């Protein structure tokens, strides 16, 4: 009986948290101002991408291209005070709606308040993919089937959310050895990844899995590997305006959305977000972001990066594997097709 009451109280607390997050996102809608509004053209079945970014002009052409190819219909992007002209480029794209803000990224829960509002306003009833401009979704059969095939299948099997673990990709050389040119496939340079270096724990409050590890944990965070970033992400969700991302795209409320794994031994479908962060553009970014101190845990990540970069700017090791395709990631057990044959 007491356990039940306790569980009910926890549930109430989670609901209160979700409502607080939603209220906050709605309140902060004033922080972002519309630059190009093309949301009127969003059709009822369209697949949407939600992104917040800053000074990512070099990455944008490939980013848009990649997601257009797998069938994204519309991009909703918040530009956080870019100064590199990326904003103009985005405003010219026919399938991009652009917002702009000068407000603090950190104070807006690392941009999630802004995206929370856009998801609330435009995401309801759509399959929404919330990614950073350096995250590229790989899902089962992505070489043969468009994303819509996946979302149709998820929907027909009653699934509302699709997990995709963040997979840090890196070059086999020093990070700045090969310069990255706009429009180029970042994974032609950053082709390597850690095949098995991941730890998993279950978070009992939100029921999500907490995945850590990867190359960052053995290099930048070698002294304190548990301070490394979380790699679990749930970027693709059939959105409802009652939903809210709690911490980046790592977990959601209501927490049923986080149960993307089977506990009876079977495998559910999952993908990977290939992370194209570790390119030649990284050093400059780390310096800039460090000055702004706008990132998670007082930019601890970037500080560790920079300290690490001075010593060894190489993430590659003899055990790194070269990326081939989604089949390879599935064989390694990093993702799974579940029963989507």
């Amino acid at each position, binding site marked *: 009986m007491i356990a039940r009451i306790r569980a009910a109280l926890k549930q109430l607390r989670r609901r209160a948290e979700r409502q607080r997050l939603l209220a906050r996102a709605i309140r902060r809608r004033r922080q972002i101002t519309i630059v190009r509004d093309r949301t009127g053209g969003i059709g009822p079945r369209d697949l949407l991408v939600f992104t917040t970014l800053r000074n990512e002009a070099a990455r944008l052409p490939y980013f848009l291209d990649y997601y257009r190819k797998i069938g994204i219909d519309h991009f909703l992007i918040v530009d956080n005070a870019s100064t590199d002209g990326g904003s103009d480029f985005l405003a010219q794209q026919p399938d991009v709606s652009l917002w702009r803000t000068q407000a603090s990224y950190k104070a807006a829960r690392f941009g999630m308040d802004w995206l929370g509002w856009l998801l609330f306003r435009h995401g309801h009833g759509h399959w929404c993919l919330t990614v950073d401009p350096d995250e590229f979704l790989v899902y089962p*059969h992505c070489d*043969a*089937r*468009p994303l*819509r*095939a996946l979302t*149709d*299948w998820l929907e*027909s*099997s*009653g699934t509302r959310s699709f*997990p*995709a*673990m963040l997979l840090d990709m890196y070059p086999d050389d020093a990070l700045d050895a090969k310069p990255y040119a706009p429009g180029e496939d970042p994974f032609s340079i950053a082709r390597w990844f*850690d*095949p*098995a*270096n*991941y*730890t*998993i*724990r*279950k978070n009992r409050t939100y029921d999500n*899995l907490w*995945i*850590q*590890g990867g*190359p960052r*944990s*053995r290099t930048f965070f*070698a002294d*304190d*590997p*548990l301070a490394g970033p979380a790699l*679990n992400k749930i970027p693709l969700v059939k959105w409802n305006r009652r939903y809210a991302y709690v911490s980046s795209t790592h977990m959601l409320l209501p927490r049923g959305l986080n149960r*993307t*794994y*089977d*506990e*009876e*031994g*079977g*495998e*559910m*479908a*999952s993908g990977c977000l290939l992370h194209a962060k570790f390119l030649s553009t990284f050093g400059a970014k780390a310096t800039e972001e460090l000055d702004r101190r706008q990132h998670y845990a007082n930019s601890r990540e970037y500080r560790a990066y920079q300290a690490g970069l001075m010593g060894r700017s190489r993430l590659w*090791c*003899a*055990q*790194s594997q070269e990326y081939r395709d989604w089949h390879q990631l599935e064989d*390694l*057990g*990093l*993702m*799974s*097709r*579940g*029963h*989507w*044959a």
Partner: protein
Amino acid sequence: MNVRGTLAPDAATWNARVPAAARNHNPVANNSGASDAVRLGVVMLCHAALDLAARMARIWASGGAVVMIHVDSKASKNDVAKMRSALADLDTVRFSHRIACTWGDMSLVHATQNAARQLLDEWPDTTHVYLASGACLPLRPVSELRAYLAQDPTADHIESVDAREGRWTAGGFDMERFLLWFPVDWRRRRILFDRLVQVQRRLRIRRRLPAGLSPHLGSQWWCLTASTLRAILDDPRRSTFEAFFRFSWIPDESYFQSLARIHSIRIENHSLTLAKFDPFGRPYLLYDDHLQLLAESRCFVARKIWADARGLYAHFPATTDAGDGRDAATQPDSSLMASVFDRAVARRRLGRPGLYMQSRFPAKDRENGKTSAPYAVFQGFSDLFPQFEDWLATRIDADVHGHLLGPGEVEFSGRPEVGPGALSTHPVLRDHDPQGFLSALIRITRRMQAFQFSPRDNQALNWFIVTDPNARLMVVTGAWVVPLLQSDMPFDDIRRVAAQLQRIELDQQTALRSVWVKAQVRSWDLSEFLDDPERALKTAVQMADPRAEPGEDLPVMRDVAGLPDFLRRLRNAGLHQRVTGLFHERSDSSKGGGLG
């Protein structure tokens, strides 16, 4: 009742109904007299994606079949109007009276009955009726299907498995579908549904079956001869059967399947429609990348096609005929296709053993394989033989590691900076998820993994290893005393450390002696081991790798002189030895010379 007599083959009038274009499209029908004897009618059940359904209807009609379409009355008026106008030019496509359909409900049976009745009334010379859905794609030309049916025109092609014996369903109810009452919808009122089943089971409620009815189950999609279908529709006890099936579960998988057993002359117990179901009872969707498999299956009809699978819609129907007409009636063989889906089902239900990842995180003891391959754990050996790791590496076919779970850096074989699969050597990261660490190491490596273990190491995996059938655990209990013997620590500290290690090992022993042990375990206490180290070592090595030949040269053993005396001192200092075995007494008498 025999209606076959009324069906005088009259190919000329039949062909007059088929559009000229369709007849030309149909080489086999024209040059094969046999298939002319088959006049195919198709009952098509549609509820969504009506534009696609219209295309399918056109394929059937232009192949020379007559089509009766039932559209769910819940479909939007606009869509239905579009569908009607898209098919307006086809004389052989008609629409039946529309009723509202619910999944797994009697309404689907009624819709089928109505449409079949209308079809047989409007085209009384039909010989076969095929039940298809709007998402069923004919893979082979309709003429080939007709040629196939013509080979044995009296056979009914319907999957019909005895509910009493066949485990046809994927985990659902078999006989209980018919013996319990199912008044509520499973999809919408799941909790009430489950409660009702529980209550009926507890009250041992059993419905009485109508006399002569033997419940059979099978795929919803069938092809019956017109005579069988008429017999089912005109059955004088139809209302009795309907009243019975109305309260059984998913009657559209059992109504025709059971009644065909009563009325059919000969049943071919298979469905001509390739339709596989996932573990949750949903039909599998087919995509463009299945094209090759579908073509090779030579099935006549497949479902369910993803609405945007343009490649499939463009390619099929495609003839399997090499051109000479001989292959036109080849037998379908869906085994290859089935194995693809069966593998997917297995992956969803059982997963890959020893895999822990973002979408597979089994609860304790639900792993279906805690690890993916056999591995060997040597406990205490490295305390007795300082060079044991190197020695063992040359004796068995395995990657031999040091203390993987030791307090310091992870001792991977060869002591690299980064372990196999880029596993970190950082103990904090390992101890954050030791189970994931060990299972990942075993999954990512090709050879067997062997590692050293001792009570000084992280003990978090004791139960995991002991309950894992892949583990081969060789233990020398009390071996941790030997390094202490040579330690120059103050005796008081030694006593404290010994007490601690002994307690840890005793804890582990409770796991090793429990009834849950699934690992292969061989345990010696220190005195037993020292009785005949050579033989014990050989046993241990061959347990880890049965093909290994340890040879004669033992690794160098630590000096155990003075051990009985040391143990006596420990005992006198208040520490009862419970894991080293009976040492002092034997050493005093028989082995005194060897050890003392």
